[in-house]
């Protein structure tokens, strides 16, 4: 009986695997792949990306183009094993001409090893690892790197008169690049880094870290965290009665930061390239569509990046018409110039990095408010 149960499960699994493999497609439909974490520890991000992609795709297909686009979503659980499996699966599907994702740099980099050999263009909305785009000419990203954001923030803080700063960041490849990009710029501007340390993602108690920071007596604290960790940190900072100004990166730019931290988020300065309050029609259109699908919630930085990434990919597919191939889509992506997205204009540099304009933002009265200085 044991054996029969096992055989049945295996057969069922095999049946499903082959069943999804070969479905015929109309010639005027172009297929794209999107690998992202729809379950697991980082599912909240992947679910947002799928929602953003669906908004972009629905608009594109409703625009009366001579061809339709379909996106195949696959769940990677932010696990490199699954990420590479999906990459092989996408590469096998001859109709897929371009891939979006993954969410974390680790999985994006592992999958990129497959896409590199297969010549499949890959555009990640969030992979921030310094070496990601160096893997091959097929890797693109739609996120401002810390090599860009760090110096921008360092200059901003120096202009505010903060010469002696503390830097903390999560212990990930991205956190490493936050500290690296920022600290170098601070030193180049003649400032000093009084303290720098990494913490593990999901840390619950920041009190010992905060007291270490305070012992170094910095003028301001620069932080590399996402909104979950950020909210914890800010709340505990407030509980300890510390008034040192806090600066952060665009990664913390999410309405959930204010939602979770409440009053503790007040006065935090950060950069962003997406403002849901921006009156320009394309931003308002995206915000409206997002609200419709999320019970009135306002989108944050990452969904906006995903929305733009999908639209940049769709525009590349359109330029690669007629009969787009992986190589033609890659070349079209590389030619992206001043793409008018909700995260500002995007141009891919020669090394396939997104060059973006940054906006300065402060939390005032429970909302993100753009500031001039």
């Amino acid at each position, binding site marked *: 009986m*044991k054996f029969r149960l*096992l055989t049945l*499960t*295996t057969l*069922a*699994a*095999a049946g*499903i*695997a082959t*069943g*999804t*493999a070969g479905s015929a497609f109309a010639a005027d439909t172009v297929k794209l792949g999107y690998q992202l974490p*729809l*379950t*697991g520890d980082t599912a909240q991000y992947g679910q947002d990306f799928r929602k953003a992609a669906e908004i972009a795709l629905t608009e594109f297909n409703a625009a009366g183009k001579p061809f339709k686009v379909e996106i195949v979503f*696959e*769940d990677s*659980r*932010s*696990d*490199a*094993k*699954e990420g*590479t*499996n999906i990459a*092989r*699966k996408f*590469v*096998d599907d001859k109709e897929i001409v371009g891939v979006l994702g993954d969410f*974390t740099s*680790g999985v994006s*980099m*592992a999958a*990129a*090893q*497959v896409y590199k050999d*297969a010549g499949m263009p890959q555009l990640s909305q969030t992979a921030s*690892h*310094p*070496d990601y785009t160096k*893997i091959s000419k097929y890797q693109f990203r739609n996120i401002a790197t810390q090599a860009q954001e760090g110096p921008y923030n360092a200059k901003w803080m120096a202009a505010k008169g903060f010469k002696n700063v503390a830097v903390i960041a999560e*212990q*990930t*490849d991205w*956190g*490493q690049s936050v500290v690296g990009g920022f600290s170098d710029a601070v030193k180049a501007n003649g400032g000093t880094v009084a303290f720098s340390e*990494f913490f*593990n993602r999901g840390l619950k108690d920041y009190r010992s870290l905060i007291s270490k920071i305070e012992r170094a007596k910095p003028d301001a604290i620069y932080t590399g965290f996402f909104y979950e960790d950020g909210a914890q940190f800010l709340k505990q900072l407030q509980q300890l009665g510390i008034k040192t100004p806090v600066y952060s990166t665009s990664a913390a730019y999410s309405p959930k930061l204010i939602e979770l931290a409440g009053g503790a988020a007040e006065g935090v300065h950060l950069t962003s390239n997406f403002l849901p309050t921006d009156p320009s029609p394309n931003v308002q259109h995206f915000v409206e569509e997002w609200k419709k699908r999320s019970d009135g919630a306002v989108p944050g930085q990452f969904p906006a990046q995903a929305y733009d990434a999908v639209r940049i990919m769709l525009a590349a597919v359109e330029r690669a018409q007629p009969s787009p191939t992986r190589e033609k889509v890659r070349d079209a992506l590389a030619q992206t110039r001043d793409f008018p997205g909700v995260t500002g204009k995007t141009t891919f540099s020669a090394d396939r990095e997104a060059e973006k304009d940054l906006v300065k933002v402060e939390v005032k009265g429970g909302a993100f408010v753009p500031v001039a200085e």
Partner: protein
Amino acid sequence: MNAFETVAPTDGLSRRRSWLVPALILLLVFAALPALLAGFDRGYFYQIANLALIFVLLSASMHLVTGVAGLLHLGHAAFYGVGAYTAALLTSKLGLGFTVTLPLSGLVAALVAFLVALPTMRLVSIYFAVATLAIGQMLYLVMLNWVDFTKGPNGIIVSKGFELFGVSLSGRLAAYYTVAAVVTLSVVAIGRLSHSYYGNALRSIREDDQCADAMGVSTVRLKMEAFTLSAFFAGVAGSLWAHMTGYISPGDFKFSESILILAMVVVGGLGSLPGAVIGALLLILLPEGLRALGDFRNIMVGLVMFLSILLLPKGLLGEVSALRLVRRQLGAAWRNTGPGTGKGEGIGWR
């Protein structure tokens, strides 16, 4: 229970089956499956076959410690990681190829396991489990935080695929045969170890370590050997993974991977090598096969695991019940240890 029967098959049927089954498996792994893979010629199927084989090796290596010797091991993925990092660092820093990194990965993982085992192997039951948990976390944090040496969370790109003395084996079929050969040899070695008098000595630790000790079995030494050997094979698996994916980062070796490997051993059946192999195949192939279910696939995988524990407490082919093992391991911590009771004094150590 049936530990001794497996060593000395007596009747004619078992003797005939003793070569028939391995021959069929070899035929499947080295002829039927590659023919099937080549027929489909899909990179996806090759990828899953290779991944499943690597986890077969990880599961089989944990079987030696947890299944046969009955020691709850919660940090196995760390030794897998040590092997992978050894291969990646040797390749990226010294330019060495797979032929050299494969054995070295195993040896370095075994050496690390030996060193951390020195102070911990006298621990028993739940205390041992907690110690392995700590070892796993420590090694993971070293990979994550020793940025100068391991490149920390940035991970390492492994630029070389499989090769044998300079001959490239990175083609699809060649890579499959490489992984299959290494895994098969390792599993045979583990099989020989666990189905021998040596394996029975390990089983005696699992069944009653105090009794085994009284019979003259050197339990501490055996535990150390089993732990180190299992780390060796985990390290070999790590080398395979590093050269196969071409990029590794600490996230591949965190606690959840240890639990995944433990789940494979438990679902397959504690103490049974075929069980460990089937458990690994099940938990790698099932989530991939169920992709069509979308967001619900993990629930299905969880359901299969839950039902298998509920309905088959010994796993698919196990010798001992996982629940019994856990109950005994946990129970030891609450055993009456008061002075004068005459039993279990200083139970954390032996």
